[in-house]
């Protein structure tokens, strides 16, 4: 006992949760959707996923090496970004689309803004929108071996009939990871059970969109139409895995509800009044940009300062 003991300020214990653990849970939660995508679209989907993930991880590694920063790929956040981006690509996309998207997501959206925690926009979605604008025909080509023609949402928009059951299971055209509502919801349940996300944002988002399409969709309270909107396109993947992205959603509770409502309205506007059938990506990206303002007006009141009754 001659040596001095370690001294630090309280608290002297810490919880077990770590950033790496959170990111790995998200990766695991994305596996059902990825697995279904591979089953649905064939081995080419697996290849695209692997290329995209390799691209994001390698970009982060090289950037940090070149800038002589601490290498942080061990936290798995780049894997999450790569996986999410891949699940947002159509299976017909060539491999270099995954590479370009991965580099853009990590280099431009994440690292140039300061790395993990500093990006103001979801990297996977930023890259998807970049690709969608730059390579529109590739990104909207949903023809593949299994399916030809348009996505169910596009059919819905042009007034054609859609098969809700197929949409829920995922036997439709679309991006690799967005088609199966069941697989995504299984993943979402994993996230909720492990306390990674809660239902504040996805819940308000989905409910708001349902209300919006029932009012402005020109079909009234038509359940098949509303369910098609909810199970179609990128809504489920977006609501549970991208709108809940910690870095780019509001940190305040009230702000999260407001954010969910905002995303629901924006998605509704884009889907119903916009030229495209889809609107989730743009809605979330615009939502991301409004987060600082949302946080500013939804700061909680301190305990005993009107937050709780005095």
């Amino acid at each position, binding site marked *: 006992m001659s040596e001095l*003991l370690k001294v630090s*300020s309280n608290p002297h214990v810490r*919880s077990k949760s770590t950033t790496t653990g959170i990111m790995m849970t998200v990766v695991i939660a994305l596996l059902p959707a990825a697995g279904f995508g591979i089953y649905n679209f064939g081995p080419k989907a697996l290849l695209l996923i692997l290329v995209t993930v390799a691209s994001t991880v390698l970009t982060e590694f090289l950037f940090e090496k070149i800038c002589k920063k601490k290498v942080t790929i061990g936290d798995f956040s780049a894997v999450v970004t790569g996986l999410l981006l891949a699940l947002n690509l159509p299976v017909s996309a060539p491999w270099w689309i995954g590479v370009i998207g991965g580099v853009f997501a990590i280099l431009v959206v994440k690292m140039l803004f300061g790395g*993990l925690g500093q990006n103001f926009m979801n990297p996977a979605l930023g890259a998807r929108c970049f690709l969608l604008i730059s390579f529109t025909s590739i990104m909207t080509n949903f023809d593949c071996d299994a399916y030809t023609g348009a996505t169910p949402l596009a059919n819905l928009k042009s007034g054609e009939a859609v098969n809700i059951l197929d949409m829920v299971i995922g036997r439709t055209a679309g991006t690799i990871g967005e088609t199966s509502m069941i697989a995504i919801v299984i993943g979402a349940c994993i996230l909720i059970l492990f306390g990674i996300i809660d239902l504040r944002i996805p819940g308000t988002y989905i409910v708001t969109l349902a209300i919006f399409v029932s009012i402005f969709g020109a079909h009234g309270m038509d359940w098949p139409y509303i369910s098609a909107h909810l199970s179609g396109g990128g809504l489920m993947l977006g609501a549970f895995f991208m709108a809940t992205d*910690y870095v780019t959603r509001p940190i305040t509770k009230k702000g999260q509800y407001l954010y969910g409502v905002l995303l629901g309205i924006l998605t509704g506007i884009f889907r119903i009044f916009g030229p495209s059938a889809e609107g989730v990506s743009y809605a979330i990206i615009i939502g991301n940009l409004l987060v600082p303002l949302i946080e500013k007006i939804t700061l*909680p009141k*301190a*305990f*005993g300062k009107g937050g709780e009754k005095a």
Partner: protein
Amino acid sequence: MAKRTFNGGIHPYDGKDLSKDKPIKEVLPKGDLVYPLSQHIGAPAKPIVEKGDRVLTGQKIAEAGGFVSAPIYATVSGTVKAIEPRRVVTGDSVMSIIIENDGLYEEVEYPKRKPLEEMTKEEIIECVKEAGIVGMGGAGFPTFIKLSPKEPEKIDYVIANCAECEPYLTSDYRRMLEEPEKLVGGLKVSLKLFDNARGILAVEDNKPDCIEKLKELVKDEPRISVKELKTKYPQGAERQIIYATTGRAINSSMLPADAGCVVNNVDTVVAIYHAVIEGKPLMNRIVTVTGDAIADPRNFIVRIGTNYHELVEEAGGFKQEPVKVVSGGPMMGFALFNLDVPTTKTASALLCLTEDEVSQMEPSACINCGRCVEVCPGRVVPKILAVAAAHGDEETFLSHDGMECCECGCCSFICPAKRPLTQNIKSMRKLMLAKKKK
């Protein structure tokens, strides 16, 4: 009925099994006893003995140094060896009276008290004041001031804080189990001061045996009830326990009396009993000596002034070299750089750990996960406050209610990026409080 609690909070590993079944054992000090003159909030006490004086157990050796202050009593008989600065748990050097223990434990004759029914309110408060009682849960605020608010008739609740929400601590638990009648007795004394108040024994539901025992004891007391609280840290924080038991919320600039409440910790209530009914000043307290480095974790009744080394010896010494020793609980206690410090009125535990998990963790980037916001009982945004504190941004710190932080440590505990949130906020608060005083 849903269990009473507050919003936020955490569930750390509680470690209470190490010591909860060990009955309270008395420790007789062998070496010198050290009495820091500042063991409470407020002005330091003034020594009234001199080097070479012989003192008896229970003799006053320092008197209150101001209104917000408390006298100090000798807890052994012996000779005053010196009055000099000594190191205390916070790491500060504090002027202290050092008494050489003669091992005889000769006691003064304690004043005979009238029966409680015949005592006036002023007499009761005087007894508490003279006994040197301060908040023994850790804050060390002189208890007589708490017991004499401006408008005593407006006090609706006198709460005995029996939550003991800090992990590892079992001192209050043992006291409730072994001497519940003194706890109830002390609460009855406090109730005598407040005609319109009801007494509440607020216990966390991880102590069902205490709840049962206390319920049995108060079943014929119309003014006292036992309230079960959800087990959650920091359930025993003053503002949180008031909210959980009464639904009233106060902020940092208010006193419990503003919500019609008076809150005292278990050991403090028992000290009130000793002072008012038995005429004895505050001389000892229960200390849990525990942690995985301790051979035989135990609960001790310790004479104030006893060196921590002696407590460790009494608990069988170290079975493994400790790396970190904490005075108090793991959430809010003070880490010590060595054991050569005295037990004070506010020391509830000595926690000896073989591993310092905090120093092994490297903070990484904040991912904005919001867990700190989720757990904060003060309903502030620790993430924003910690950044403001690190940048010395006073304006943001104050406008985001940084002063409402109670330094409970929940945000640092929960942070997956292992960022020192509490530590940053705490330093900034200290700075701001010091600035305010100027």
